[in-house]
């Protein structure tokens, strides 16, 4: 299912931002979570339908070692997070994919696990990549403690006190996941086998459910250890503090290729978001409720920007810009003329002229926030049936392919790939760890084993061939003569029908920042407080401020 332009009204189309503006790395690297982010989609469904959530099993000893089961149950289906809690020596704690042990490991089971299932999972899940799961499992994940905050909270609760709010704000989570695998990895259920379920149709819903239940586990395990340590003196975590906590996540280069490898999916994510912005801008007037909701969302964004920490120079600069832009927006809204024509569009135009990319993309998120009734249905269009776009249209004349390349890939053909700085890097897979890495072409070996991730250069090479090929011939004939271009031809034919399919930048340029790719994807997950640890490694927070299983029915902003 692709969200193509046929469902857009002509009036909305006029307000769509073009791909040439949206699909640039500099802007994608300023993405903010919105109400269409996947964790928000999950929370809305859990809050609004008849899902019952409980913890039927909690078999954990005084050292915090054991397992628990969290159950999410509707009339039709049950999902169970099986959590294994371990006692990890500090010297083994690493966020890298090369770690071999974790503080806790998890799997999301499709249904209710039997004792035999639990025993099987206990033999595999704690070993992560060295274990195997089955089609009965939907995800495989692990998490490490934030040593600093975890110990602080356990100590405080064990002594009958609440943790220091400054410590809570400085970290924001008790544990951070270092991997959440789904989609058939390590033997898990294939995405195609579950994508038809309404609750899993939107992207990454099993992964988001896994992380949300992990968040509940992180508080339960802290309270459990505090009680074991403090006995009757121990207290539970204050509910407001608890709500402020999210789950940290640490993500490296491994995630970057994903949005390049899934062009239809990327298109559908971006197009849903852009359509949402266009719908808001196209409104002739503004409702008063929407204005007060905007104001509340802006207050939350200002608070979020205040507690958002990073030591990375690029992010420090972006945070300064964001805080400045949000303050400017706040001042501007005090006197904004909401009685004029198309006031939301006017506000957007003001933002484009006034704010940095960081501020503009934050404004986009803020403008969607009061308009759930207008935009939330777009979440139903963010999945993708990639198999439907896989077949090459061999009957297409080569002349038509040439036209697609010269129009849809003008940005790529404009790059000079004879210039060293434009081919400075190469993407490859490490033999040692099978993880994606980025090499320096001039100084590192392995460029002959380059992964096909620099679409711009692949397309430029295809263009060179196509220009010299008989234009009256078919693409099928081109493919027989030039099988080396099959990958790029498939891309070009997809892009012809999916305007937001390509990151319109050179992904092997000397100055390319992988964290921009990571942030784009993580913002669609619903991540906040991006904290780059290098140019290819970022920490985030998920679900901070969101309800917990025991209060999601009580309402609150989702």
């Amino acid at each position, binding site marked *: 299912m692709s969200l193509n332009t046929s469902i857009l009204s002509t009036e909305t189309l006029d307000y769509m931002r073009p791909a040439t503006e949206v699909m640039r790395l500099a802007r994608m690297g300023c993405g903010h979570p919105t109400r269409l982010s996947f964790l928000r989609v999950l929370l809305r469904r859990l809050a609004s339908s008849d899902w019952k959530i409980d913890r039927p099993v909690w078999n954990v000893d005084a050292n915090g070692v054991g397992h628990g089961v969290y159950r999410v149950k509707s009339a039709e289906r049950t999902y169970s997070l099986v959590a294994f809690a371990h006692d990890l020596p500090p010297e083994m704690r690493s966020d890298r994919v090369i770690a071999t042990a974790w503080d806790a490991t998890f799997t999301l089971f499709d249904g209710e696990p039997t004792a035999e299932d639990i025993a099987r999972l206990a033999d595999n899940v704690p070993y992560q990549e060295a274990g195997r799961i089955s089609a009965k499992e939907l995800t495989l994940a692990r998490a490490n403690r934030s040593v600093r905050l975890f110990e602080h909270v356990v100590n405080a609760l064990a002594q009958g006190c609440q943790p220091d709010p400054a410590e809570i704000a400085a970290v924001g989570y008790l544990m951070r996941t270092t991997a959440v695998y789904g989609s*058939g990895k390590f033997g898990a259920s294939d995405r195609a086998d579950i994508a038809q379920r309404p609750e899993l149709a939107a992207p990454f819903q099993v992964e988001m459910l896994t992380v949300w239940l992990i968040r509940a586990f992180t508080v339960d395990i802290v309270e459990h250890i505090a009680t074991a340590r403090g006995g009757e003196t121990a207290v539970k975590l204050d509910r407001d503090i608890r709500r402020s906590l999210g789950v940290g996540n640490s993500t490296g280069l491994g995630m970057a290729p994903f949005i390049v490898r899934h062009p239809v999916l990327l298109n559908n994510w971006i197009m849903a978001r852009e359509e949402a912005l266009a719908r808001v801008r196209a409104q002739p007037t503004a409702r008063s409720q929407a204005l007060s909701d905007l104001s509340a969302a802006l207050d939350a964004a200002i608070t979020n920007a205040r507690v958002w920490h990073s030591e990375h120079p690029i992010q420090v600069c972006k945070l300064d810009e964001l805080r400045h832009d949000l303050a400017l927006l706040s001042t501007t809204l005090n006197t904004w003329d909401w009685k004029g024509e198309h006031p939301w569009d006017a506000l957007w135009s003001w933002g484009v002229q006034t704010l940095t990319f960081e501020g503009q993309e934050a404004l986009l998120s803020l403008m969607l926030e009061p308009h759930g009734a207008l935009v939330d249905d777009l979440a139903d269009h963010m999945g993708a049936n990639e198999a439907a776009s896989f077949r090459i249209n061999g009957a297409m004349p080569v002349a038509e392919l040439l036209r697609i390349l010269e129009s849809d890939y003008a940005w790529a053909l404009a790059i000079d790939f004879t210039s060293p700085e434009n081919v400075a890097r190469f993407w490859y897979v490490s*033999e040692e*760890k099978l993880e994606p890495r980025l090499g320096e072409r001039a100084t590192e070996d392995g460029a002959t084993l380059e992964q096909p991730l620099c679409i711009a250069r692949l397309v430029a090479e295809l263009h060179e061939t196509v220009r010299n090929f008989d234009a009256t011939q078919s693409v*099928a004939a081109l493919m027989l003569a030039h099988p080396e271009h099959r990958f790029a031809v498939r891309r070009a034919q997809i892009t012809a029908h999916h305007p937001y399919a390509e990151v319109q930048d050179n992904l092997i340029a000397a100055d390319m920042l992988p964290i921009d790719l990571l942030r784009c994807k993580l913002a669609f997950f619903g991540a906040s407080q991006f904290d780059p640890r290098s140019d290819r490694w970022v920490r985030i927070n998920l679900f901070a401020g969101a309800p917990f299983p025991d209060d999601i029915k009580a309402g609150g902003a989702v």
Partner: protein
Amino acid sequence: MSSEPQDQTRGDSTPFFSDTKPAPLSCNEAASLCMKAARGAGMSWGMAEEAGFAAAWLVSHGIDGPSHLRAHLERADGRDWADLCPTVTPYGWQNTNGQPACPIILGATMCDYADLPEGPHSGTTIALGPVSAPILLVPFLAEVARSNGLAFTLSWPEGAVRIDADETWLQASLQSLGVPQLVLALSTNAAPPHEPSAVSMPNAQTTAATIVVLNTFAMRTTVPATEASRAGAGSTLSDND
């Protein structure tokens, strides 16, 4: 490969299957491993994706596609494109050098030509000549049959199998088509348009031996580590915080 047994630090658990145990892969794993292996054995990236598609399609239809692909790649490894591809004419799609055609290239090309005059149309018979691992041709023909409302009959000197909407032919044809090589002809007839069968069957399991061979091919696409690459992979900051 440089990995130790049970090395948890590599993003792949398939090497841990031992020889005697069945090796169940998800379709995603089968497609991914077979795509990398096909690339490692010399296919272009775009053709390697077709290999991944074909192997995973067979897995989801209860047939051990990865083992058939493995057998084909072992035979095709190192052969030139000219020795693997068909020359397309309205009546014959044979390899000009008289070599057995690669079923992935032949199948993908069949899909490419499906809507062109040279492609398979109702009432035509195309001589395919010798085809390696002919079962791997089936996923492509099933796709064209579905999208273009066609039924195919694949015939060889000793028998024939009809490929149409009713996928009951699939298991029956496995024994005939699951061989190293057949000299094939493809006849085409009109059939009512149809969607894939909604009946799902358990994924086929593959074998540890197949996974070892496919991983060996796949490892040819990877780059040995250097100190520079290790240093660049992660954060320079401590994670123990």
